[in-house]
């Protein structure tokens, strides 16, 4: 009974949205539709397809940048001894404390000065900045949990710190990297504020912006909005399922005696 209630609570809105997306526009005022249609999907058009592509590019770019910078920085913070590493860690966390809305104006000016306003790269950079602290936090605690002796063994075996990272620690960190990748991807995929503020050309809009701007002056195309939302959700669900398989616990089992 409890389980059913939880399921309804979480999946109910999603199911309703999926249903709405197949609901013929003229019948929306009824309690339930008589027929189902794919017209809402067909009506999304090439502009929305472009938005999906833009979102994919931005989210993938952000994820790649975040993991590359985050993993190497987290490794250094967790395993290397260098002056100011506490400051670096704390500073990165402090960045995430800023409410995004407060940074819109200054970021706008910076991006304009850098010639990145109204470009997808101009979204990737601030997204990565905001997602990096979380990545750093997750990966640092993951690397801290891997035994120090593994690092020292790699060093004695002739590795530079960078080689130890690439050959020993990176291959062990797939579960953590996958988790971070999903979180960062979802964050960038869903982000609305920056995308709405920094992008003006319609062909460079991302999905959240495109959906937000669906509403016309006189009509709210609920069926199309629902269809667009379903399209936006499917890649995320797919991605999560894909990575879930890689999140295998106990990858480090046998490295050290517990």
């Amino acid at each position: 009974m409890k389980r059913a209630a939880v399921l309804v609570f979480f999946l109910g809105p999603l199911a309703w949205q999926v249903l709405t997306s197949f609901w013929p526009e003229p019948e929306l005022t009824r309690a339930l539709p008589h027929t189902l249609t794919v017209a809402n999907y067909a009506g999304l058009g090439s502009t929305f397809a472009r938005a999906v592509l833009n979102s994919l590019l931005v989210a993938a770019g952000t994820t790649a940048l975040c993991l590359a910078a985050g993993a190497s920085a987290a490794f250094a913070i967790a395993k290397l001894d260098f002056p100011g590493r506490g400051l670096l860690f704390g500073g990165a966390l402090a960045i995430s404390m800023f409410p995004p809305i407060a940074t819109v104006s200054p970021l706008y000016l910076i991006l304009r000065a850098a010639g990145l306003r109204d470009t997808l790269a101009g979204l990737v950079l601030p997204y990565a900045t905001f997602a990096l602290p979380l990545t750093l936090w997750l990966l640092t605690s993951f690397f801290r949990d891997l035994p120090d002796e593994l690092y020292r063994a790699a060093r004695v075996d002739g590795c530079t710190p960078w080689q130890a990272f690439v050959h020993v620690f990176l291959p062990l960190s797939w579960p953590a990297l996958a988790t971070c990748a999903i979180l960062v991807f979802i964050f960038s995929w869903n982000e609305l504020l920056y995308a709405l503020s920094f992008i003006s050309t319609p062909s460079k809009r991302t999905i959240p912006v495109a959906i937000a701007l669906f509403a016309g002056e006189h009509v709210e195309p609920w069926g199309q909005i629902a269809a667009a939302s379903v399209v936006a959700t499917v890649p995320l669900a797919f991605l999560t399922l894909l990575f879930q398989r890689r999140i295998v616990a106990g990858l480090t089992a046998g490295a050290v005696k517990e």
Partner: protein
Amino acid sequence: MASVSLVHVRKAFAGAPDAVHDLSLEIADGEFVSLVGPSGCGKSTTLNLIAGLDQATSGSIRIDGKPVEGLEPGERDIAMVFQSYALYPHKDVRGNLAFPLEVAKLPRPEIERRIADTAELLGISPLLARKPRELSGGQRQRVALGRALVRKPRVYLLDEPLSNLDAGLRAQMRRELRRLHHKLRATFIYVTHDQAEAMTLSDRIAVLRAGELQQTGTPREIYQRPANRFVAEFFGTPRINVVPAQVLGLPGSGLAGIRPEHLEVLSERAPGALEATVEQAELTGAEVWATLTVGGESIVARAPSDFASPPGARVWLRVPADRVLRFDDETRGAAQARL
């Protein structure tokens, strides 16, 4: 093969007393030397300094006469075996053995040849395709050893390599290490807190306490002529008896030490024997460790396995004077022991 010298090495961590204090130690080519002491004595720190995983605050470390400061761990021609084995969990045994050679960019046929030789030597050839998590503790230990051997380093550093094994396996690996050292004739530096391990394995033992070297010597020297009370008490089970000299009927003030196996327990009064009362007796099989009260002090003595005096019984204790160690007043720190 190489000698290792530590010259006035000091290691200080911020806000703590010196982890290693003015340590000077000469380790000869091909020697098996144990660094022994209770936890926190600086033995592992010393090993890390030799490995280059940590930098000494002052002093100098030389391998084969050449200072190694500024050399990366990989450039020092050393190999290390860790307490937790520290095998690479994502690589199979072959990959673990190959890794240091791959980093050194050895040609592939040479790598394969060395892996085969090492696996043969340690009896792990059937395990080459296994992942570390599929191995037993003893097998992991062998692989960890193999990863060190495969490099043919000048110096082997072993950091409590046997302390995660159960007692039976530990004894077996001890013999194995001894055999390997004999075969390789390389320099071994072995860190342990287990005095019995140090005694059975080493050519020479260096005893550390709170970052300071207490004594170096062969196991026999360390056991028979300990430099001070700390060393005397650290080696030997049951522990050496240390009591005021008068209790043993000896002249002078200060403390006297006598090992339990040197005492003789008599059931009848004899000239020169001390009167004692039995507190308890523990039969270990071949012998009995009898705890006796003499002059208000507890003293443990070895008795034959047929010793059957009940608690409270009166016995006599013969103290061979030539076995007694004298310690000066303990208030003067590392007191000297003398025979």
